[in-house]
């Protein structure tokens, strides 16, 4: 019975909450008020906005010593996670059968293992840093912790079900994924999409002033 719920209505519900929630958030950004800037621009805002969307992927030389751990652990986690999400064989097969109708080349098994290890290690280090560093301990909210832990649980249940031989483990993983999808639009996980307009706005602001940000 639970299996039917997880494979059926709960799956569709979580997909709906996720897509509608994300859409709502992005729409409110696009259609919210934005006053035009009446000052005379020194540089072009558009190209600067686009540039900054990409340039912020690397830290400025001046702060690298202080933020090295966060960027390294951050990339281990994010790149590992993306590799898992989009190129792990079980996921591609799932997407092909349940959503898209087409698939693509998947990672070899060893690459899957390495990606998973990178993702786990990066996330553990990041979350520990959040707990250990006085700045992040002060400014972190329950949302930040729930987002990190929920993502970790999703990854962990996936890893535990790796043999793909036990229904209960597969269902546990799918269930945590559905919880994650429902939580997503109401949380800091939205940065997945909103970092693009965020970087673009700031890039444009600095770009008008002729500053390479």
């Amino acid at each position, binding site marked *: 019975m639970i299996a039917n719920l997880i494979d059926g209505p709960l799956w569709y519900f979580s997909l709906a909450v996720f897509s509608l*929630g994300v859409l*709502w*958030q992005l729409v*409110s*950004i*696009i*259609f*919210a*008020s934005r*006053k035009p*800037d*009446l*000052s*005379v621009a020194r*540089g072009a805002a558009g190209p600067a906005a686009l540039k900054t*969307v990409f340039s*912020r*992927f690397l*830290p*400025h*030389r*001046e*702060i690298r010593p202080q*933020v090295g751990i*966060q*960027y390294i652990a*951050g990339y281990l986690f994010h790149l590992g996670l993306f590799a898992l999400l989009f190129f792990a064989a079980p996921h591609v097969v799932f997407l092909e059968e349940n959503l898209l109708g087409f698939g693509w080349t998947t990672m070899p098994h060893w690459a899957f293992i390495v990606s998973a290890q990178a993702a786990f290690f990066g996330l553990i280090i990041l979350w520990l840093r*959040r707990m250990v*560093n*006085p*700045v*992040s*301990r*002060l*400014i972190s*909210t329950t*949302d*930040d912790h729930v*987002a990190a832990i929920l993502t970790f649980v999703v990854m962990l249940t996936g890893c535990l079900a790796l043999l793909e031989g036990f229904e209960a483990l597969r269902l546990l993983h799918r269930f945590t994924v559905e919880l994650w999808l429902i939580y997503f*639009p*109401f*949380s*800091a996980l*939205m*940065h997945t999409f*909103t*970092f693009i*307009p*965020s*970087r*673009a*706005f*700031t*890039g444009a*602001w*600095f770009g008008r*002033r002729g*500053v*390479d*940000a």
Partner: protein
Amino acid sequence: MSEKLEKGLEVLRSEVDSKVHSFFSSCVNCGICAEACLFYTETQDPRYTPIYKTEPLRKLWRNEYSLGGKIRSMLGLSKPLTEADFADWEELVYDGCSMCGRCSMVCPVGVDISGMIFKVKHAMSKAGFSPEGLVGATQRAVDIGSPMGITMKAVMATIKHAEENTGLKIPMDVEGADYMALLSSNEIALYPEYIESLAKIFDHAGVSWTLSSDAYEATNSGLQIGNKTIAGQLVERVVAGAEKLGVKNVISPECGHAYTALRWEGPNFIGRAYPFKVVHIMELLDELLAAGRIKTTGMESEKLTFHDPCSIVRRGGINAQPRNLLNQISDNFVEMADHGNMNWCCGGGGGVSSNERAEELKLTAFNKKKSQIEATGAEAVVTACSNCRMVMEEGVETNEMEVELLGLTEMIAEHLEPRAAS
């Protein structure tokens, strides 16, 4: 709910726009902004983390605008803002932030944190949560015309001295001049050599310029306190003065926030574009140098370094010009390790230097600039903002450092090639 709180919330709500939505949706509280902020690095106090300073606005956004927050508010689960949210954050926002913008440069998800802090300042200033020193300065700016209380009479006296020292006539209220020069109270009071330098340079370069008796003050206390309405009023005076004389350009002096107020935020404060161009004195001097209208002679012998005023370089876009000018008169110029757009604030910008309550914190923050200067081994620090200069002089004296503070415009004036008497 008290009147103050109501006003504060009203202004905060008016500040929520598209940017606020994307910024607060994206911030994951990583704390990298703290590493860029000198108030944090020199005190190690996590409360000075830049994004923490935006908390009143962020709390409001979470409660009333975010998806999760709206649902929680409906269910009665959210905590509304109280006066404490404003009162407790006053010190963080006014004493512990110089609006230098370094945090906005480093945020991995691109949040313009100092922009958000300015929005909070707007609400705080309108609701009456601002430090006494700034409130007084703003009052004087509105009533007398200068935050330091310098009247036109005092300006005229300074001009007279300048004319005597240079032997040049300083034009006043000349209609149709190409350039209308503004002054900052700091320059009039502490560095009147700036006025003499302008006279000498413009005479040398043959620039048609004037001062205005209606609009001599560039400093904008409204911007410093965060009150956009008063900031607009003060900008309007400059615009009215420039329009009255029908000048083509207005020169923003060696003052950081004045450039931000006039060049970048001004048109938005008053709701219209200007019929003239705004140019910073550094920009103008660089243009004149490039056009061959300024000819210099001699080189400074001592080892120099340059402090980048935040509002002019990082937030103003004038990065190359001071360097061109400095290289013209010095072959012993060393850059600080963190220079240009990523240089560190002097600690006194954004109204901090007008805020007596922030004195001790400002001096602690200066330790960053101190370590930068000492690392270069420079004998003198050149800058292009009189506020930075004053703040750094105080810091240098407190720390008993053997370093001179110099203004770039003055240095150019000192190195002008003498022209045959016309």
